[in-house]
């Protein structure tokens, strides 16, 4: 039976290798300097790049981080530290449930609360949608990492007569900082590839970004649009975009892994 289980484990990671091989094979030939520096060419013209989409994705991620990180980290600190009775349980439960809500549903939510009142698709709506997706991940990761801070540090601070709020912010949070930064990076990597919630919030754009209240391009959106289009050159660029996107995601995940394993060997 052991070899059966080992085969299963092999089959679970096999698609990763297959997909990665295809990405390298198809994408590497299409990634060039133009890809990173040029706007998409009009339909029918060969060449061009996805520079606007790369910039757009970065802008969306920064927006999402500004909106989602402070609440997420403070929420995590609350879950780890609070002695309240019901709220921590409810919040933890809702965070996990929210984590399971399909991202497209989050897109609809962002559409109803931001796009409809503003009467246009916008970068802001896209950033908000990504922030909502990011929030539960950041909350739970921060909670876990704050819990790892030894109680003796806390006690030492309190014994010195430092008020609790200062101990929490300057000792506990500062100790957990490296881990929380990693958790944040993982969360960002996770939302960087999100496509569904951007379809009708950020909407996509074939030009450079024109302000946060305007539709904005994003790498995953562009990959999707190019993949289902009937042009070979666009398919090639879709593979290139996918290679860049997965490179971004993997580098962040891997960096996070290295940082974490160096600092807290007992995290997982």
């Amino acid at each position, binding site marked *: *039976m*052991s070899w059966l*289980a*080992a085969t*299963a*484990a092999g*089959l679970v*990671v096999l698609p*990763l290798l*297959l*997909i990665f091989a*295809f*990405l390298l094979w198809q994408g590497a030939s299409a990634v060039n300097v133009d890809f990173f520096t040029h706007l998409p060419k009009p339909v029918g013209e060969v060449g061009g790049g996805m520079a606007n989409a790369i910039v757009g994705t970065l802008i969306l991620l920064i927006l999402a981080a500004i909106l989602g990180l*402070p609440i997420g980290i*403070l*929420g995590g*600190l*609350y*879950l780890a*530290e*609070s*002695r309240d009775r019901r*709220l921590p*349980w*409810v*919040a933890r*439960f*809702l965070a996990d*449930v*929210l984590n*399971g*809500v*399909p*991202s497209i549903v989050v*897109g*609809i*939510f962002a*559409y*109803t*609360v931001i796009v*409809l009142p503003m009467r246009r698709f916008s970068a802001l709506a896209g950033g908000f949608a990504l922030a909502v997706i990011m*929030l539960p*991940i950041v909350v739970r*990761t921060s909670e876990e990492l704050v819990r790892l801070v030894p109680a003796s540090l806390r006690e030492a601070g309190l014994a010195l007569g430092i*008020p*609790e*709020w200062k101990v929490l912010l300057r000792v506990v949070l500062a100790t957990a900082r490296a881990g929380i930064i990693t958790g944040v990076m993982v969360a960002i*990597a996770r939302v960087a590839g*999100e*496509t*569904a919630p951007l*379809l009708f919030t950020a*909407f996509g754009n074939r030009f450079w970004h024109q302000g946060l209240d305007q539709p904005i391009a994003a790498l*995953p959106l562009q*990959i*999707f649009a190019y*993949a289902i289009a009937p042009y070979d050159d666009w398919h090639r660029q879709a593979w290139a975009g996918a290679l860049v*996107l997965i490179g971004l*995601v*993997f580098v962040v995940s891997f960096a996070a892994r290295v940082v974490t394993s160096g600092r807290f060997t007992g995290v997982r």
Partner: protein
Amino acid sequence: MAVVAVPRVDTQAAPRNVGDQILRLVLRAAAMSLVLLVLAMVVAMLHAAWPAMRAFGWRFLASSTWDPVAEQFGAIPFVYGTLVSSLLALLIAVPLGIGAAIYLAELAPAWIRPPIAFLVELVAAVPSVIYGLWGIFVLAPLLRVWVQPVLGTTLGFLPLFQGPPYGVGMLAAGIILAIMIVPYITAVSREVLLAVPTSQREAALALGATRWETTRIAVLRYGRSGLVGAILLGLGRALGETMAVTMVIGNRPEVALSLFAPGYTMASVIANEFAEATSDLYLAALIEIGLLLFVVTVVVNAVARLLVWSVGGPVKAVRE
């Protein structure tokens, strides 16, 4: 007789410091915002879906007509497509995921566990749209040229495997979904198995059980509810997965028995038609589908969490 004042130990004592009070308020507000966010989602979507709910009532769930021109909307084809593709995915992913988890938690040599666990995490980190891209250009042609003709000639007497091999369709969607949810099932099951107390294993071993018998009797049975939770978490993912499915399922709002036929899911109809919905009623109908998806996934996830927590406890809960 001197009376000694015993200091009152009270963990709920109000903080004396103003800073403490402020921080407590801020932290509580951050946690409350999670609660408010979920409530706001429910309210906003109910509000936006209301026109469709008023116009169609329960017929929405019982009709298979999806005709934007005549403004007749029924959710049956999408519910059917979502259920069939997700069940197909579970059929493939559950044995693989649980098997891999058993390997990682019980059987594998210690040095091999971290790299494989890391690879499994990476499978989960690949963006959905990339699975879709791979599905369109690699999986679908593979199915069309090799797998479907073979299935059609050998098992073609079953209605499941009849019809022309398009490549894209329910089968492709199920396979892509299986690939995407298997890392979740593996990761959560592994955590569940690791949470099983060592004394369980020792007891079985002491009774003379082999390693496999120990796993089966002492570990799997103990962690049963958690494993069911892991499967439900995978199901929750599959139900709501959007991009990859949209790219390979064929997007035809019909109920067809054959796995070769194109289908449509709740998530993919939203992805395809939302930005192009021409009338308010059309948009409301799509949002109602989204609401339905929301409710179903919340219920599935809530049950799954409670089951997983029942083995490991909520604090060391699983990170995805």
